[in-house]
């Protein structure tokens, strides 16, 4: 089996892919997320975001003070459409014209 080093296992983003993105000129966490897909899978970055941050700082691409996480979008825990439906206050009951 080919040895591969993963930074984001949800989306199968390897260290090589991060390095390729960096070589293409990306150094911003939001840019790298979008280009590689890192942090967009089921865990939403819980496993990979800080690993990416450490890597960017270790390579001198950004200072720790300037480093920002990507937006922590809801939900941070899984939630079903079924449970959410209970909170609706303006359900369209009947089709209106």
């Amino acid at each position, binding site marked *: *089996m080919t040895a591969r080093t*993963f930074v984001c296992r949800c989306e*199968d983003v390897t260290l090589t892919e991060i390095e390729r993105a960096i070589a293409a000129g990306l150094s911003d966490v939001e840019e790298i997320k979008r280009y590689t897909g890192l942090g967009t899978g089921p865990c939403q970055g819980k496993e990979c975001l800080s690993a990416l941050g450490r890597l960017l700082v270790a390579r001198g691409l950004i200072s720790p003070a300037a480093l920002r996480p990507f937006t922590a979008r809801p939900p941070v825990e*899984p939630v*079903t459409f079924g*449970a959410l439906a*209970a909170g609706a206050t303006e359900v369209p009951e009947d089709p209106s014209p």
Partner: protein
Amino acid sequence: MPKAPLLAPPGPPTLTLRWDGAAIPACPGDTVASALIAAGELATSRSAKYRRLRGPACLHGGCGTCLVRVDGRPNQRACLTPVREDMFVEPQNTYGGLDPTALVDQVFRRGIDHHHLVVYPRIANQVMQGVARELAGFGELPDAPPAEAACLIDHVPEVMVIGAGRSGRALAAALAAAGHPPLVVERRPAAALAGPDLPTDLLAGVGVFACYPHERLWAAASEQPPVLHRLRPRHVVLAVGAHEPTIPLANNDLPGVVSARGLADMLEQTGRRLDARVVVIGEGARAELLAGTLAAERVAPAQVRKLLGARRVKGVQLVDGRTLRCDLVALAPDPAPAFELAAQAGAPIQFTGAGFAPVCDADGRIAAGPAAHPLEAADAQTAPPPPWTLWAVGELAGATTPAEIRGTVARCAAALLRALADSPAPKDSHARA
């Protein structure tokens, strides 16, 4: 083929779960993940792109690779799902016994660049997109919608504590002792929360999934039964701990590569004992402590050339040429604080060297600050001042050792009680709407 067990049970197994057709013995207190690992079943899915086998890793509900189908519901976290008698658990995205990894390795030796993969000619591009679509996605559609009707519960607690781990429980106990028992919300189910110090007012199996400052509420939910909780507390204590980030090592995704902390906690919670060779990879006092707990040899990440194995981890090859044979590899990285809810609540976020954390004072009080996203920063100005005070304890407040964690809890409890004394709750507080 039956596999060698890796975790000894605390007593005779009294439960059975169905895993991919086979019967797996389990004990009360087991999660699906602990029962599977105990039975040597380490792989639960194949990955999205490289089609590699994956299994339970963080053992803490924080990663995305232990997702299994449970009784017809896709993408359930094996590490947070308690075992029930005769539950039907299936792997996902595996295509039976086929092993496509070798093919992928041969064709994509240097990796898959999905943006530039088979762009030309157009006809090949269309075929590739069709294949990619079939390979993508994890679970299949659920068998059926939930049988129970969903319901909505509103809460107006004086103090809400998010997380019933060590720091959350200690803080809740300190507040309760002073006459202010908080509402504690914990994503793990009650079955996984044994212990004498459980808070009296506890919502277990309920995950706080967001803070919506503009709507002045926090939202939480459980899946079964489907319940949505809206919480409007006066004080919020984040006792949410930390994530275990991955350590970038070759083959760090093999089934059997788990979090050292997750494994230690799982053993404590289930009463199971290790019956396997474990190598801990990590540096510093915390890694040393975890290696001691797991009675494992420890090596630093820099010593490791790669992890060995194909369908599961079998050893650690070191840069000095030695090979350490093992059944499980336990990663002990510096933990990364679970900053997400704090960020949603408007906390200023900084990089600590290990990960991201909210800026808080010595008592754990978090002041509001600008949002991180360049285009979303404007929102911080449009949000009304929050109706709650936000606090952090434990690892989120920068503590790493048990003593430091106790310190953050003690200081936060004292400051919070002062704040409650200075500004007593209105009469209708702590009522459930």
